């Protein structure tokens, strides 16, 4: 494992929430809603679930790999990557600024440790992860490949191409996770374009489906992801039920906060709701 981090995951999760709100506030743009909802998942993956080298390696050999397909929730990823030591925490202050490695959407173009392929245009991450999983199998590696997608993102056709591909090629080292917050830009997912029964859909494509009913419960999401990883024998799709905007009352469950920056009063209110023992960047 990477982390000789002494902080408890839950303490770290709280600080990641503060980072997310601060980054979006200072950049006056970005996507806090999905980011806040996925805090536990990303902290859990990087602290407790994935086996990682202590330093970032582009080729991901002999370690687990993570891809973020819903690249707009870059703030949560950047904060976690910095907080576990992939790069300096103070670099978070450059988010969305000129000459930064922390682009609005993640990219390896600026050589940010942790990022292997760009995302932002939705629907592409599962294919890339499937390719990485295939490469691991060719190399007889035991490690796993994780990818996170949005639930609105499930409307993209390419995801279903990739779903067929992974099942057909029996990628039993691929774990696809979906942030099921029920919300996308224009409103509730069921109103914008009903995904219907995602679990049934993925099953019918040949995947095993696991449901985590409260993926904002750190212990629950960690225990479940660990056991899924341990006993996997086919591609697994994990439906993570989260709350968009989790932890900031006025952002919770509102599509308005998919991609909006708080004003100063809202920023201060959020900071008051998220006390932390750690230092802000």
């Amino acid at each position, binding site marked *: 494992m990477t982390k000789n981090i002494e902080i408890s995951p839950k303490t770290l999760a709280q600080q990641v929430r503060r980072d997310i709100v601060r980054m979006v506030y200072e950049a006056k743009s970005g996507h806090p809603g999905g980011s806040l909802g996925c805090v536990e998942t990303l902290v859990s993956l990087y602290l407790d679930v994935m086996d990682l080298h202590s330093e970032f390696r582009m080729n991901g050999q002999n370690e687990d790999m993570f891809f973020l397909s819903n690249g707009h929730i870059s703030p949560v990823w950047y904060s976690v990557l910095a907080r576990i030591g992939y790069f300096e925490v103070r670099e978070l202050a450059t988010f969305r600024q000129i000459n930064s490695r922390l682009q609005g959407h993640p*990219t390896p173009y600026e050589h940010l440790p942790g990022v292997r*392929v*760009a995302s*932002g245009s939705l629907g592409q*991450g599962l294919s890339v992860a*499937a*390719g*990485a999983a295939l*490469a691991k199998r*060719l190399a007889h590696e035991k490690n796993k490949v994780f990818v996170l997608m949005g639930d609105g993102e499930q409307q993209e056709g390419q995801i279903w191409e990739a779903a067929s591909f992974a099942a057909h090629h029996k990628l039993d080292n691929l774990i696809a996770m979906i942030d099921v917050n029920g919300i996308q830009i224009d409103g509730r997912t069921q109103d914008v374009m009903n995904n219907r029964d995602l679990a049934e859909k993925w099953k019918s494509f040949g995947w095993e489906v696991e449901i985590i009913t409260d993926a904002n419960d750190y212990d629950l999401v960690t225990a479940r992801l660990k056991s899924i990883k341990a006993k996997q024998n086919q591609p697994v799709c994990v439906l993570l039920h989260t709350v968009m905007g989790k932890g900031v009352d006025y952002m919770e469950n509102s599509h308005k906060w998919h991609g909006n920056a708080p004003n100063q009063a809202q920023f201060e209110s959020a900071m008051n709701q998220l006390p932390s023992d750690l230092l802000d960047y």
Partner: protein
Amino acid sequence: MYQIKDLLIRGQKDTRSGFGDAMAEMVDNEKIVALCADLTGSLKLDAFKEKAPNRFFQAGIAEQNMIGVAAGLSLSGLIPFATTFANFATARVYDQIRQSIAYSKTNVKICASHAGITLGEDGATHQIMEDIGLMQMLPHFIVINPCDYYQTYQATKAIALTQDPTYLRFGRPVLPVFIPENAPFEIGKALKLNDGKDITIVATGHLVWEAVQAIEILEKEGISCDLLNIHTIKPLDLDAILASVKKTGKILVCEEHQRLGGLTSTIALNLSEIHPTPLKSISMMDTFGESGTPNDLMKKYGLSSENIVKTIQSWLAL
């Protein structure tokens, strides 16, 4: 440097077979993996597939996913060759290429057959002539459009040795194999096929053979032509073009592609900046193709030796 009179016809083959044969020969390179979207035979990949079944991946009719899978495969150091018809390898999947390959600088080789109007009878839905433009616009991309079986074979082997995202474009018609066996193939370096003084002909892809035939006719009339075979569209060998036009003062660009966005546009832009030179183009004039035999189509749309001869005759007669 060569002279056209020395070029020997070594057989009749399609360019795509040059790709397939090179792939089959490179099968012992364990880094090479191939993907295809339900067109394995058309891409001449059967031999590779047979020799390395564990390194050939059927992607099904799902090209967007194939591009992403190729990007993911490359991260570990594998060299994925993602293949299908040129239309479905570029226009169909442009955003996937842009984000997962070009911007991410993943070492994927997109190898595309059935490019251009010479695809023939299937008609305009399949005859892409916008692909060079699309692909050369992408930062990081190398774009190669070889002219015969042998040059396609050489190009396939050459791109396996680089780390760059690459587009390799070839086609379906059976044409003379005329590139000499000892001809060098260097990515980004034009191949000079004839030395002349009256006009520079720059040709790429299947139109190189048309240019060769045209020059034989023109030479009998006392018109001598410089012929540059541009196989690498990007990076462009501007030095070779410049050296030639400084001598001849005129350039004719021949390509099986829309004039807008293709080699014609690129050369016009570059020469305008550094050495303005009168230019004409043998290319698709902002129109779609149609069904027909490759030969009939080349004639109808002016992508032919006859049209090259006519264009140069009337230009030089002025």
